[in-house]
């Protein structure tokens, strides 16, 4: 727990990954994510952002280097430390919204009634009270992603990993969801690592943006986003916002 006192929820040191013994995917990545911070990773397609996130979740092993999450390595998924929110919501179509949110709790056993209450509270948090009995195909894309976020939060993990969660949504819904996410984040004080393609989304959400190079993925820039919180849509029109976005864009262009 020493790292926690230093304020680092995630510490990555000298991480490299090679696919199938030959294809270098990630190269010498080191960074800390301080507890309670919102870190966004951007980079060109195929740069290994998702792989990196899967390793942080304990879903995939790296070839080299160490990952410490809340002071300990994470060799296998540990839902009490890390919650993952995937692209495309990935809700189970045979379960209702509420049952989907309950799913992580139900894997661990325990009182059904408490699970239901907890899931109901999460549903409310993401603004979907009254939609608990709907099946995923009866929900819009944005609503599905809200359910998915509720599912990620239901076990109250201190760390939340998000893999392009809004990529499948239309621009308008995407912005609304980003704003919603910030609202939820501000009430839960999680450490968030968020992967995205969208530079606007990156600047809007992040405390810090990490820019990755094309394969093999390296961290080529770290950009502190100094915009005050709470963020508002109006900030997107400011010079500061534009300059930050432009700097990231320049870095990615160089990287590609």
């Amino acid at each position, binding site marked *: 727990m020493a790292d926690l006192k230093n304020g680092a929820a995630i510490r990555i040191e000298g991480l490299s990954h090679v696919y199938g013994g030959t294809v270098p995917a990630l190269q010498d990545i080191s960074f800390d994510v301080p507890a309670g911070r919102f870190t966004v990773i951007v980079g060109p397609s195929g740069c290994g952002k998702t792989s990196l996130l899967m390793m942080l979740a304990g879903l995939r092993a790296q070839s080299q280097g160490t990952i410490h999450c809340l002071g300990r390595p994470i060799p296998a998924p540990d839902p009490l430390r890390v919650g993952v929110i995937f692209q495309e919501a990935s809700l189970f179509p045979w379960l209702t919204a509420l049952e989907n949110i309950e799913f992580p709790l139900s*894997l661990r056993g325990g009182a059904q009634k408490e699970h239901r209450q907890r899931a109901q509270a999460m549903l409310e948090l993401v603004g979907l009270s009254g939609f608990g009995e709907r099946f995923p195909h009866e929900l819009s894309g944005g609503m599905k992603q809200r359910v998915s976020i509720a599912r990620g939060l239901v076990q109250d993990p201190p760390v939340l990993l998000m893999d392009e969660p809004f990529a499948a949504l239309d621009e308008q819904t995407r912005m609304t969801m980003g704003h919603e996410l910030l609202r939820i984040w501000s009430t839960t004080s999680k450490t968030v690592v968020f992967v995205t393609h969208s530079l606007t989304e990156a600047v809007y959400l992040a405390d810090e943006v990490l820019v990755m190079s094309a394969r093999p993925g390296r961290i080529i820039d770290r950009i502190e986003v100094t915009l005050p919180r709470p963020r508002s849509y109006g900030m997107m029109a400011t010079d500061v916002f534009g300059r930050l976005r432009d700097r990231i864009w320049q870095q990615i262009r160089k990287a590609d």
Partner: protein
Amino acid sequence: MKIVFARLALLALVLAAWELLPRHGIVNPLLLPPLGDVLAMLGELLQRGQVREALGVSAAEVLLAFVVAVPLGAALGVLIAENDYLGEVFKPMLFIVFAIPKSIFLPMFILVFGTGFQQKVAYAAFTTTFVVLMSAAAAVESVKQDYLLVARSYGATRLQLVSRVYVPSMMPLLLETLRISMIFNFTGVLIAEMYASRTGIGHLIASWGENFQMKQLFAGVVLLAAAAIVFNEAVRFLESRVSAWRT
């Protein structure tokens, strides 16, 4: 609602035509006996010991073949779907064999098993196993990798992956497999009985046909059609309950 009425009207029309056309000599009643006569014959046949025994034998053959073929086919299907190497090796061959009409193998089954009970069961199980195998493999492959990844990220054990992701995700396809396999099974037994047999409802139907006993023949057809429809609808009802989430 209108659709339901139209469907019932169509059914009534067909049945009425079956009754009235032969009754008034518009269709030769020797070829198509009126519905009423056929139903009367059906009632009479069901009283006969010989017919009841034949039905019992056929039912036993169908059930035994089902009990053999479904687990066997399902196990093999899961195996080739889960094991990439076995899948790569066996799938092309299975696809080719699947395309061959299975009835051409019937003479071989007679040579090996004779013309009795065993041969019917073996042949029906043989035809059914292929169907179950193919659809079970398709069912396993229909499970999205995303769902497995999500469940694993929440710490699901292997057993939980099977019970909480694989089974519910595959359930609609599995029920459909069950339904289709019963149809193949039933067909397999009937064809084997009609081809060479001393008993069974297929044998009776074949001999009624050969002897131009059209009332008996149609009574047999009505009986088997009813049995097939009842099973089919029962499983379809289950399917609709289980797969409400499918769009």
